[in-house]
């Protein structure tokens, strides 16, 4: 059993060598990674809304009670509480980062198989997830105290008097936790999409 392969000699004079223009690497289909990138972009927009909404709501939390004594007027504002100040600043940071990361998210949509932008996004997303979670939890602890007080340390529950302030701060904390969940989904989706085949 034998195979014969005969290839004739080619002469460089007879064949006109044409040059084919180099177009570039053929584009592979985006597939599911492109879908993940698009969903990443949409979730990022949602997280921007949640984070900036939380910062805005908290920074506008202010209530002055309609009665006052001779010496002081009862007012509660977000900047009376250090945890709320920290909350506003850090949620503003998180919202700002999410806005600045939108171009990187668009790059991952255009080039679904590139590893660099996704790696960059997942690491920074995780860092800002931690920041958002810590600030949301700190504000949540204060809001819980404001609702319930604490008997042993004689910290009074101020929500009974300042109901509007309480509502605004609670709403801000809930919005911050929504942004935390969205950031969590973003990190998990990017990790799954990073699998190199």
């Amino acid at each position, binding site marked *: 059993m034998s195979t014969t392969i005969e290839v004739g000699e080619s002469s460089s004079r007879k064949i006109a060598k044409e040059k084919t223009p180099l177009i570039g690497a053929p584009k592979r289909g985006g597939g599911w990674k492109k879908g993940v990138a698009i969903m990443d972009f949409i979730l990022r927009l949602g997280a921007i809304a949640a984070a900036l909404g939380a910062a805005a709501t908290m920074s506008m939390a202010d209530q002055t009670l309609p009665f006052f004594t001779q010496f002081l007027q009862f007012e509660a504002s977000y900047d009376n509480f250090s945890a709320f100040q920290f909350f506003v600043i850090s949620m503003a940071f998180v919202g700002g980062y999410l806005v600045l990361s939108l171009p990187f998210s668009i790059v991952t949509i255009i080039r679904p198989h590139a590893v660099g932008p996704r790696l960059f996004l997942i690491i920074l997303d995780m860092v800002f997830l931690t920041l958002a979670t810590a600030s949301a*939890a700190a504000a949540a602890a204060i809001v819980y105290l404001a609702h319930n007080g604490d008997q042993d340390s004689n910290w009074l529950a101020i929500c009974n008097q300042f109901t509007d302030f309480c509502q605004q701060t609670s709403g801000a904390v809930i919005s911050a936790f929504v942004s935390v969940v969205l950031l969590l989904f973003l990190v998990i989706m990017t990790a799954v999409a990073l699998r*190199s085949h």
Partner: protein
Amino acid sequence: MSTTIDVAESSHNNVSKGKATIVGTPKRPGGWKKGVSIMDFIVRLGAIASTIGAIATMANADQTLPFFNQFVQFEASYDSFSAFQFFVITLALVSGYLVLSLPISIVAIVRPHAVGPRIFLIILDTIFLTLATSSAGAAASIVFLEHNGEQDPNWLAICNQYGTFCMQTSEAVISSFLAVVSFIIIIIINTLALGKH
């Protein structure tokens, strides 16, 4: 110019088909990914130590002042504060997860190029990072209040009286933030090992 390729017919009778045994894919050297997995394992052990240390310190935080009046004995304990109870329970969950994830981390050391264990670790690590950060943040908020008080709702800084209790809770919170940093480190190195060849 033409090329001729003649491939003769193959007959089944003359060729004895031998069977080559498949030994298995050759093992690629682990390389830097194995180093990453080993570092992940070591940092995970450190995170377990700091989490359990935080739980133990917080659960033992208890101080009774040596004076008392007719009605009440002054005692501060961790279960006076809901945030500290949440802290202990959540960190117990986190430390349980870390212990259960040690075998998966060992699998990632043995098979450095396998994608499955790493993805599993990254996703679960992110979820428990969020849990650990929120409990650490809430407890930190209460510890900050203990140290500084809050003027407007007239929450007194109880650290001035309960010195030992204050120190114990502060140490527990610091230890839990070490665990959070460990989580961030292991997630980042696992992501780098996942994304790069």
